[in-house]
């Protein structure tokens, strides 16, 4: 994939383009730094959900009719640091799709009727999460991993109390403070000529006010490891998750930890973890590791879903695999396979417009350099196997991790 065309507008917004005419469609992926970390509980979630639900000029119904009459699609999804902006359209519908999108970004209505619908959705989603073994365990774990004073500690959706209280004026004020073009990034991929991008697309985004540039989120300090059990006796399967604070995406050790995560519980059918817990012992349908690295910091997790009678055995097996990262670190052959996996998977991942747009967006978001994709194979090849082993052992250390189990766990003796 060649370098993306990059435009920095006068209002601070950065636009990117990967031109590719192999499919007659355009996908875009963007972000605005208006995630949960920037406001009191729940407000970012409400604001993002209300963004495409009507403007000062057009009702929610008219906005959705106008979008869907074009067979276009738009979405705004709240995250911890930023709100993800997404869209799909064709070259024929690009102009009108952008008109709707920019109108929604600049002048959302925050109408009371829409707010009440969103209140029902958020409340419902929070209640669904409470009854979901995997989501409930992960949410609790993140509360243990990040200290209460850090913005990553709380649920980005807020809680039942915040969902009950948020008013339109709160969302309006949050929007005014955080939805400026400064810090906004939008990447396009697909059937779009550079000339149109530099002209029509840039002109559409130039209409946005600059606003204030986003403040950085503080780096999280790790909490003391802790354990929790969430009893849900009515469920069939138990879930458990272990994890700790890890690294920011821009940290020098990120690439090494990413490769360690791949080898530990992702490559093939979930790496070493999958091999042991699923393949050898037949204890779980899934068991994997994951790394979430954001601008300010991140966390790494190990997750598994198992029959409650196998829970203690699965916990012990996963703990043993974590310890094995120290006693039997990744071999040179494992590291070599992981490197070829990373290089090959980059190529395979970039087969669709939404993934291409997401990749060039992320490169800009994390400041990796416009030639990052070109440099990536060399970055991976140059990784020191020792650093992969060291970061793996450090960040998947069972004694430095917090542990949470959920589901029909009453009476199960757990030794975290």
């Amino acid at each position: 994939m060649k370098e993306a065309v990059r435009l920095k507008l006068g209002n601070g917004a950065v636009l990117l383009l990967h031109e590719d005419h192999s499919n007659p469609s355009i996908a875009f992926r963007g972000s605005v730094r208006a995630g949960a970390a920037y406001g009191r509980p729940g407000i970012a979630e409400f604001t993002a959900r209300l963004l495409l639900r009507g403007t000062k000029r057009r009702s929610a119904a008219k906005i959705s009719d106008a979008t869907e009459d074009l067979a276009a699609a738009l979405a705004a999804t709240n995250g911890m640091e930023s709100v993800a902006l997404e869209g799909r359209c064709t070259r024929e519908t690009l102009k009108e799709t952008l008109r709707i999108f920019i109108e929604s970004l600049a002048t959302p209505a925050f109408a009371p009727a829409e707010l009440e619908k969103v209140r029902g959705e958020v409340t419902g989603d929070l209640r669904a999460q409470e009854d979901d073994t995997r989501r409930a365990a992960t949410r609790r774990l993140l509360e243990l991993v990040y200290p209460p004073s850090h913005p990553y500690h709380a649920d980005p959706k807020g809680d039942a109390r915040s969902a009950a209280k948020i008013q339109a004026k709160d969302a309006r004020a949050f929007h005014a403070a955080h939805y400026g073009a400064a810090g906004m990034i939008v990447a396009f991929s697909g059937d779009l000529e550079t000339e149109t991008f530099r002209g029509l697309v840039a002109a559409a985004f130039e209409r946005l006010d600059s606003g204030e540039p986003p403040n950085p989120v503080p780096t999280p300090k790790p909490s003391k490891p802790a354990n929790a059990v969430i009893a849900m006796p009515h469920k069939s399967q138990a879930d458990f998750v272990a994890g700790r604070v890890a690294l920011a995406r821009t940290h020098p050790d990120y690439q090494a930890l990413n490769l360690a995560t791949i080898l530990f519980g992702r490559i093939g059918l979930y790496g070493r973890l999958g091999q042991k817990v699923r393949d050898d012992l037949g204890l779980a349908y899934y068991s994997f590791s994951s790394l979430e690295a954001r601008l300010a910091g991140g966390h790494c997790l190990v997750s598994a879903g198992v029959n409650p009678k196998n829970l203690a055995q699965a916990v012990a097996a996963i703990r043993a695999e974590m310890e094995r990262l120290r006693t039997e670190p990744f071999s040179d052959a494992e590291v070599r396979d992981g490197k070829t996996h990373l290089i090959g998977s980059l190529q395979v991942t970039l087969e669709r417009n939404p993934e291409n747009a997401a990749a060039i967006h992320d490169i800009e978001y994390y400041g990796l350099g416009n030639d990052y994709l070109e440099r990536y194979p060399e970055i991976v090849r140059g990784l020191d196997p020792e650093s992969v082993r060291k970061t793996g052992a450090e960040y998947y250390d069972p004694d430095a991790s917090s542990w949470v189990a959920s589901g029909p766990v009453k009476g199960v003796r757990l030794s975290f």
Partner: protein
Amino acid sequence: METITRTLDNGLTVLLRPMPEAPAVSVWVGYKVGSRNERPGITGATHWVEHMLFKGGGKLKKGDIDSIVGRLGGKFNGFTDTDFTIYFETLPPGDLDTGLMIEAERMRNAAFDPQESDAERGVIISEREGSENSPKYLLSEEMWHLAFHVHPYHWPVVGWKIDLERITRNDLYTYYLQHYAPNNAVLVLAGKFEPEDAMRRVESYFGLFRPETQPPPLAVTEPAQEGERRGEVRRPGTQDHVMIGYHVPALAHADTAPLLVLQAVLGGWRGLSLFGGGFVPRSNRLYRGLVDKKLATDVSAQHRMQADPGLFTIEATVREGVDPAKVETAALEEVEGLRRKPPTKEEMARAARQLRVWHAYDLDGPTAQGLLYTWFEVAASHTLLDDLIDRCQKVTTADVRRVADAYFDETNRTVCTFLAQEGGS
């Protein structure tokens, strides 16, 4: 883009979708075997066989598929459905042979090591139990169980737990030998390759396999439903859910096009494939009638498009404090109201455009093309895929009204409700 179609002497159907600019090649093999081919006692066997086919055999040792594809940075997976089983690898363009080799070994040489099949029992049961944790899964299982008395759509793809506890290695291996043969399969290549070169390679990997005598086609027809059926699942939970199903014809039937247009009018359209993304359609009758009126927090409609006559379903999550009966009534007003209030000209135009444009989104990339062409070929015919979207453009208001009249009738519907009980959180 044209689809190049070939058939090997042993009956293997090969579809080629060359995409010279693509950064990958996607290798798909679909087998015309799904849970519809099982019998009571071995429900879940198709899905279990799928799991076993990642465990090596022939040139592949256990773990080789994961490590070979993983090393190359490829994507791979398998899916079992009521009507088919599908496997794929998406790989860098120079690695077509790897995908073909894996699929050839999978077709005829799987090991079915008894120890492995026993170990997999725990994994399969764990997968089923993970699904049981979800109220929506339980509701869906109840729906199909109730709507089909005779046809194998009666049981879930993952199988009943009692069968999963008893199925033997020999049950699985016999099932595999019977159904995994070139004359019961389709191979689809999408992405960067040269067609004639690819065909030579396909011939070298698959050409020597012998065809197998296939069991006679499934001769089970679900009798017409003669009255509403109702089911309830009462379990601890935090949200109520409503699901409504109507019997509709098979994918290959001429009414599929009007039913898809009807689906778009009723519940919006987000494409045929799994790659629709997180976009919520709001300009449709169900959203306006249920979510806008604060009765539900989400709602969807779907024609399941199966090999045999299946279901058109509507699903809604009940908003907190709302009586599920009200949601059901509102949904029925919208669905069956189509008979009294047929789609407007604007609704028809929107539906037709969405079906056409989302088809382009659906075909973005080799993996997406491989999935759609394999699915349609094993469930009906790949020619139906492009033809179906063209046919949808010609559907009239009268056609939509006719199918609404024909299928959205009280005597043909099944209504299931998940009623969340205390203790769910």
